[in-house]
């Protein structure tokens, strides 16, 4: 029971960490608080579902389509919606509020489109639903794959940001958007790329989620909330923080569901969130990307 809870907690936590990394890029670098983030995740989940059930395309191959599509969508949304907001923002706070409001509207548009297209039913498909035995407990193979994919994406992103010039530029913008132009970094371009990259990660998260969870057109909000909580716990813009906080959240949720009551997982999530906010508003792992 304990090992089983630990393993499913890791799977869940890996997924949370993956989606939270995308949000922390969008908020930490592009300074856009994207409330439609969860809807981007669910859109990708539906995309994976459609590709699997109509084209017979397996979700891992589906990633090759979904992630670039998410990247492109983010790129377009930033250009069309966020650029004017950035241009008119007087300071960081007013951009935050404007972006919250604009993406709040976007949330309803995305959700509406999905409701019209797919209805409000629970959706899932069966892919690699075979039992695998690890440490004496059985786990569905798709969950193991989900964890592996989360590790691959997270690790890849980490290397991209820390080992490449391009990534260093993005981190520079996260640390100090005012000084970045002084060393020749185009902040707007960096913000746009970060936003697009974040959307790509949202798409990856959506595909991974669709492999082992049921979802509906309206479940995006919960993912946004959880991603936000992980981002704040980990410290805005901090990738390692997001990773650790995601794992903690996944483990706590699984343990509460296993040992307390499945109906109280969200309450537990909030309790953590609130205590982190009150105790360490800058996050458990500090604010800056390390």
């Amino acid at each position, binding site marked *: 029971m304990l090992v089983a809870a630990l393993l499913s907690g890791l799977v869940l936590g890996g997924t949370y960490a993956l989606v939270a990394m995308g949000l922390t890029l969008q908020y930490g670098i592009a300074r856009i608080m994207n409330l439609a983030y969860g809807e981007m995740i669910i859109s990708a989940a539906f995309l994976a579902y459609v590709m699997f059930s109509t084209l017979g395309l397996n979700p891992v191959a589906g990633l090759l389509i979904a992630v670039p599509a998410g990247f492109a969508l983010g790129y377009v949304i930033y250009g069309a919606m966020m650029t004017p907001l950035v241009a008119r923002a007087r300071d960081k706070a007013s951009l935050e509020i404007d972006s919250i409001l604009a993406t709040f509207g*976007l949330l309803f548009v995305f959700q509406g489109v999905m409701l019209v297209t797919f209805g409000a039913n629970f959706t899932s498909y069966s892919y690699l639903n075979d039992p695998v035995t690890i440490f004496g407990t059985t786990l569905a193979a798709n969950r193991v794959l989900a964890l592996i994919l989360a590790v691959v994406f997270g690790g890849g992103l980490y290397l991209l940001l820390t080992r490449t010039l391009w990534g260093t530029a993005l981190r520079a913008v996260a640390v100090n958007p005012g000084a970045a132009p002084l060393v020749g970094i185009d902040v707007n371009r960096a913000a746009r790329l970060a936003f697009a990259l974040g959307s790509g990660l949202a798409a990856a998260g959506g595909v991974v989620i669709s492999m082992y969870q049921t979802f509906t057109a309206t479940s995006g909000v919960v993912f946004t*909330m959880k991603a936000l909580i992980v981002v*704040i716990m980990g410290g805005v813009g901090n990738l390692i923080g997001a990773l650790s906080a995601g794992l903690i959240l996944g483990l706590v949720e699984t343990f509460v569901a296993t040992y307390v009551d499945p*109906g109280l997982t969200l309450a537990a999530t909030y309790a953590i969130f609130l205590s982190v906010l009150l105790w360490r508003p800058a996050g458990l792992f500090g604010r800056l990307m390390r």
Partner: protein
Amino acid sequence: MSRALLSVFVFALVVAVLAYVPFIAGSYGITLGIGMLGYVTLATAWALFSGPTRYVSLATVAFFGIGAYTVAVFSENMAYPLLLAVAGAIGLAVALVVGLATLRLAGVYFVIFTFGLAELIRQLVTWYEVNVTGTLGRYIFLPVTPEGIYWQLLALATTAFLISWGIGRSRIGLALKVIGDDEVVASHCGIDIARVKLALFAVSAVLITLVGAIQAPRWTYVEPTIAFNPTVSFLTLIMALLGGANRLTGPLLGAVPLFMLFEWLSANFPNHYSIILGLVFIAIVFVLPRGVLAFVEENWRRWRKSGVKNLPAVAE
């Protein structure tokens, strides 16, 4: 002076005319009136706190739902006025707890927390109903007529409006303006910022809770997904923003046309409702970021200025 008197007169006249509406309107008219008055109150109460403090609260439906659900739970064993008082008290208690915990956080954390608050309360209520009482839905049988609900909401809307007007003229109104300009100066002037914000948040939350409590009997059947429907927060927010959250009549001017639009949309495009809603909202954020009133005023001033420029001899 005479202008102030005129405003009072117009206000009293409008309230009187609205109070008379149930005698001439049919049942559909009353239903429409209830919805509209509900949203006018919600938007005014929302703007009361969020306008001057710039704390964008997405928790409207949390309090609205608390009001509705309290009435549903206690409707069988309490007198109606007591029912409203209890609902208001619960709303106040929740507002104080949430406010004390979150108001000292930076604005964006407050938005995020309130964004999920309704969801949290919904889940807790669902959990409680399933595990403790064993039923999810509840019926509300109360001897309240639609006309009664209408008049109560009118009274509440009037109260909200008067509170908002009174605050604008009072010490606390000045405190809010100072806080809005510069919190550091505000506290160095002796203003207890946390207390002012908390007081305002509480007043706003109680008003919102009462809207939910008064409207609840219209449903007859309530369950958490109905009472805590996030669209309520969303609509309230758009209405207040459209009109302009920093002005007395702003929320009112936003609530009336948007409510009509949404009524029409949900009747004619039930499936595409939320898409259109989202698009309208985005349009408002982009085109009228500070509300219709500010927009009109600015253009009026610009137009007048250019008018004066053309007649240089007249100036002074």
